[in-house]
């Protein structure tokens, strides 16, 4: 049985539907990310789980019990807010202790748990600091300790890393993942950063305009995007118009001068998606011309103009000589590296 379950949850504000038909089963200890652009309904969904908003339709269940019937203060969820929402008039230790105090945990045990929680997030010795005297990263750790010290059934993270600079964000990602693995708390992360979602989660829920586009492992969402939106949103991709010709035998998939045996099922006009790092320069394939060539340290980025429209190609900087700007090339890829969708999808 699923630990946390959202069953066809929807949220409407007036006539506007912000979240629609959202169904998800989260296993115990799983790390799930809600990924999507701003306004896709991911934060609204999180707030419904937290209880700050009531769903218009649908049910949210935790261990089989209807969560929507429980007051937010009694749900026992740990939440880290984007702004951290620390209590500025309390020290770090008082902030962390607040949830335990509300649970009437005895003073001695409380002090011990606060100390342990702050030590876990690497803030031992910062007990008496006030939040405004701490850096963004430290405040974030206090917020995490405050959410975890109450031993929440589910940890909800609302874009917790978006206010940190790139380097710190990467460090916190690793640390967050380690802490989550160690204590095994079921976690839901809301983010618009695909790298963050991919490096942290067991599964990603890709959302767009209030609907789920795909629920899959990070690798699967990247390799086998379920829709054009997913393939565009997760990393760079090339979409080429192609046709499947079933008049000749064996049937073939044709994109410009590139062709391969057709996959089963589809026929007629289709769209093929290929990740830029899966395209190579060869002797046969799509004819193209290099427009710009950008050196990015460990790889080269090529922007090409192909017979099927613009294309981007990423090649590893392996020391080999690379084509120069203006050079005519042929683009080729292995059929198993592309995903094929009906032209409308």
């Amino acid at each position, binding site marked *: 049985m699923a630990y946390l379950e959202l069953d066809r949850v929807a949220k409407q504000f007036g006539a506007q539907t912000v979240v629609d038909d959202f169904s998800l089963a989260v296993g115990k200890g799983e790390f799930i990310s809600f990924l999507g652009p701003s306004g896709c309904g991911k934060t609204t969904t999180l707030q419904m789980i937290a209880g700050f908003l009531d769903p218009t339709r649908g049910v949210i269940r935790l261990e089989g019990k209807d969560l929507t019937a429980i007051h937010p203060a009694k749900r026992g969820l740990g939440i880290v807010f984007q*702004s951290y929402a620390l209590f*500025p008039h309390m020290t770090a230790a008082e902030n962390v202790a*607040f949830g335990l105090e509300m649970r009437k945990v005895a003073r001695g045990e409380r002090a011990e748990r606060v100390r342990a929680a702050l030590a876990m997030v690497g803030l031992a010795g910062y007990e008496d600091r006030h939040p405004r005297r701490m850096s963004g990263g430290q405040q974030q750790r206090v917020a995490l300790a405050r959410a975890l010290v109450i031993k929440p059934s589910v940890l909800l993270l609302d874009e917790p890393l978006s206010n940190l600079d790139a380097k710190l964000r990467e460090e916190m990602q690793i640390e967050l993942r380690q802490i989550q693995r160690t204590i095994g708390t079921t976690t839901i992360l809301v983010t618009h950063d695909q790298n963050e979602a991919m490096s942290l989660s067991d599964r990603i829920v890709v959302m767009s305009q209030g609907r789920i586009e795909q629920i899959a492992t990070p690798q699967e969402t990247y390799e086998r995007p379920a829709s054009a939106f997913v393939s565009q949103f997760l990393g760079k991709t090339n979409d080429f118009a192609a046709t499947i010709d079933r008049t000749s035998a064996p049937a073939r998939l044709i994109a410009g001068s590139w062709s391969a045996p057709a996959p089963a099922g589809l026929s007629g006009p289709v769209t093929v998606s290929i990740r830029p790092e899966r395209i190579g320069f060869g002797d046969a394939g799509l004819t193209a011309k290099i427009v710009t060539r950008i050196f990015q340290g460990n790889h080269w980025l090529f922007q090409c103009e192909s017979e099927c429209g613009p294309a981007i190609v990423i090649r590893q900087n392996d020391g080999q000589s690379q084509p120069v700007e203006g050079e005519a090339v042929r683009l080729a890829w292995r059929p198993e590296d592309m995903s094929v969708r009906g032209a409308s999808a």
Partner: protein
Amino acid sequence: MSTAAEERSARAPWALTAPALMLFVGVLLIPLAMTVMLSFHDWGQYKGIEPVFILKNWREIATDSYYAEMFGRTFRIAILTTLLTAVLGAPEAYILNRMSGRWKSFFLLVILGPLLISVVARTLGWALLFGGNNGLVNKLMMSAGLIRSPIPFMFTETGMVVALAHVMMPFMVLSVWAALQRLDPQIENAALSLGASPVTIIRRIIMPQIMPGVLSGAIIVFSLSASAFATPAIIGGRRLKVAATLAYDEFLNTLDWPLGAAVATLLLVALVLIVVGSNALIERRYAEVFR
């Protein structure tokens, strides 16, 4: 070359602030100094003001219990007014802050209302409602049999406190409101998710954070109430004098300018000490919230 330029740039700030500085000195500092000096002059019914240095006025204020009573009343009214505005104004600001856009601007206007009405019209309005047997409220309540005799309002300290609190309320509400704007919009949700009840959220999370706003509002209300003139003059009449109305009477009725100056100076010094003192206290106590 460079020294001339440096000299010029050193003189520039002085030159630029000179006009305002001269205005400030001319219309504030000099009259203030003259008032202080005046309080040390002598005065007699038949000889008028004598520019000598004596402590007669100050000795009179220090020894005559009339002045102690009058200053006591002044600060009692100011403290009660401050408490009343804090108790009513802080929740008012909190509710106002939670209202949606349209209602918020409407009620903000309602709260600012007393400031938009002339002090005389506003105070006489209170007199129309509560003044003696003919006051509207008193009349209604007496004819309904709720009270036997009119509620005493005019010429009472209660009346002065209520009327002052009415006009001072905007200062408290706006000051608390400004503090509420600095709150993290998710802070209540954060406390809620940790298991806090609504009462606990207000007491433990909201109150400590808006306290600096309440206290700075209190300083404004206190100093304005202690030096208020028009409202105490109309509600208190000639019977219940406060420092401001007493100084006015000494200046314009008795014509004992030196004594009036001494009362005014004492009021000013007391207010400055109270305001500066409590300000320092607040800044120390709430250093973390102010950062």
